[in-house]
């Protein structure tokens, strides 16, 4: 029973003190579960991280589920996941309760957010830019990325449809080039 409290508390602390999204949480998770608690070996953690990135959903949640499962099975996964999301949940609920009423009639907050809104757009643009550069600026990734952007923005295609189509294209073109190579 003690291990459940321990893993809950570990992920609760990580969830409460990492600002900047899931990727910012990874070094803290590693420090806690690999170095301090020794629940997962270092090389196993690296492999698990690669898998957590290829699964859908927030990477911090995927990692929490994996570590929990490794320790005590699915019940422990639920506990570690709740530990990771609870701090976010509590903080955001408090802000939503307060901010939703505050912004509508507070002139100071409205001024502050007039400055923040365009900067948030820039903060989302930069990672997309970096990912495109890291992908090597080759024809195929650029073609897929551009097509995805255009069909979402111009044709209002759902991003879900785009993801499914892109996955199928990746699978078919991979199998096709494998067939060419083996001949």
């Amino acid at each position, binding site marked *: 029973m003690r291990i459940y409290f321990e893993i809950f508390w570990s992920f609760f602390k990580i969830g*409460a003190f990492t*600002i900047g*999204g*899931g*990727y910012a*949480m990874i070094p803290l998770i590693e420090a806690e579960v690999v170095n301090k608690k020794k629940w997962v070996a270092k090389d196993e953690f690296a*492999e698990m991280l690669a*898998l*957590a990135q*290829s699964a*859908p*959903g*927030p*990477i*911090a*949640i995927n990692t929490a*589920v994996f570590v929990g*499962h490794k320790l005590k099975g699915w019940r422990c*996964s*639920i506990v570690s*996941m709740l530990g*990771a*999301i609870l701090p*976010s*949940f509590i903080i*955001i*609920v408090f802000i*939503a309760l307060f901010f*939703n009423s505050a912004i509508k009639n507070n002139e100071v907050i409205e001024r*502050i*957010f007039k*400055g*923040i*809104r*365009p*900067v*948030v*757009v*820039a*903060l*989302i*643009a930069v*990672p997309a830019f970096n*990912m495109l550069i890291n*992908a090597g600026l080759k024809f195929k*990734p650029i073609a897929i*990325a551009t097509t995805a952007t255009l069909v*979402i*923005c111009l044709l209002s295609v759902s*991003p*879900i449809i*785009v*993801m499914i189509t892109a*996955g*199928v294209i*990746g*699978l078919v*073109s*991979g199998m096709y080039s*494998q067939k060419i190579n083996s001949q």
Partner: protein
Amino acid sequence: MIYWQLFISFFKIGLFGFGGGYAMLSLIQNEVVEVHEWVSASEFADIVAISQMTPGPIAINSATYIGYTATQSVWGSVIATIAVSLPSVIIMLIIFCRFFLKFRDNKYVGYVMSGLKPAVIGLIAATVIMLVNASTFIDYKSIILFGLAFLAAFRLKTNPILLIVLAGVAGYVLY
């Protein structure tokens, strides 16, 4: 009824949310701004800003926030947060934890990912384009702030939270 729609929307977002928080923003924007109109475009930008400034994954933070805004009730937050996390739990437990070693070297998984990775970039770019509108860019000062923030984050790797704080100060002074 709205709780059920909220659950379905965020379950879909969790299920197809490959590529981390920023890519999930594209799915969230489509569901909550375009399809269901639970929040306006400018509210969405505010929610993204708040989600970045507060601890935890951006997808969880924005689900909690939008759940509240859509229903004006904490139960909306509970439903949206559970719904966005549930696919992760199910997929990780059923597939990834059990077939851990098989998945690691599976070439077909690699093929699918080779298509998904560039699509994720396209999704994020679409979010950016749809966020550029009259509510986020109100005048030339917005464009200057955008340009400065882009350069600082891209060239100098300035911390995003610091940039949001500076943007807030700039907004207070300029408007």
